[in-house]
């Protein structure tokens, strides 16, 4: 998908009548040439990937399915996230806030409520009417 001629020559080709009258790489005047070139490079990479896929797909002697290496890499990264773990203040804080604190809070709430309920039973008051947890 790279432009067949450099952008400077397409004007001359259009003027002489050999090339297309409107250069497709000059349609958007607000896009700078560097951005256009970057887009062309990205298109070239995509074209190669697509050609590779089409070759595997249309091979008459191929048998079975073929995988996408990009997806294989995605699966690998998601399953090997701990390889890139480092102990930093941020990770320590996140571990405490999301791993330790919820469990500790819930355990403390349940235990204190149950203790109060047992004390009420011993006193003869009955069930703690204000408790919404242990019922």
């Amino acid at each position, binding site marked *: 998908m790279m432009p067949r001629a450099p952008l400077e020559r397409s004007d001359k080709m259009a003027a002489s009548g050999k090339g297309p009258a409107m250069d497709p790489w000059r349609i958007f005047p607000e896009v700078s040439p560097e951005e256009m070139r970057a887009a062309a490079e990205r298109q070239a990479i*995509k074209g190669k990937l697509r050609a590779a896929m089409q070759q595997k797909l249309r091979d008459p002697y191929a048998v*079975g399915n*073929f995988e996408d290496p*990009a997806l*294989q*890499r995605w699966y690998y*990264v998601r399953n090997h996230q701990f390889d*890139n773990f*480092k102990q930093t203040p941020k990770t320590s804080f996140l571990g405490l806030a999301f791993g330790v604190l919820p469990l500790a809070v819930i355990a403390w709430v349940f235990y204190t409520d149950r203790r109060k309920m047992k004390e009420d039973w011993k006193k003869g008051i009955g069930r703690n009417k204000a408790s919404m947890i242990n019922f």
Partner: protein
Amino acid sequence: MVLLLKDKMAAVGRLGSAAIRSFLWRRTALLSSVRCLSKDEMPGPYPRTPEEWAAAAKKYGMRVEDYQPYPDDGTGYGDYPMLPEEGAESQDPWVDWDDNWHRRNYGDVPHVHSDAYTRQRVNPSQKYVVPWKKMIAALVGFLGFNGIMLYFGEMYKHMVPVAPKQYPFNNLYLEKGGDPDKAPEEEIKNYEFPKS
């Protein structure tokens, strides 16, 4: 032609072995080494040198200028690139994608959180019709108003005024087992007429 039993069994055996052979032949594709990716092609640790940077960009099929991994602060993904947060729903539906359901081409680098950004799930790049602040204000306003009214309503309750029920026949004196000899002389009246 009369087929003897042994001929029939031989034919069945030949067909069976042919089937097994083709079954195994098709499965050899699973064992070919072409399908396995080497350690170089798999994601690795955060790139430190420019050479590692360029190699990682080439590995993922991106330009070196486009390639930017997640910051290496312990919560990152190694050298996996950081892509703009776009959901699958935001991609153009009219493009001939290789995978039309996920709107993705072969070899495209999927976003790290692409399992959350499917079409049935979150779309972080969608635009809301109503501004975000207006939505939050409406929700907080409605729920807040409900909460305030409930709170003060529990504090200051009011009931419909009710009086005890009035019965006729001297408040049902005889029906309640009163002694007829000891009945009151004047009838108990539970009503009165306004003195105009």
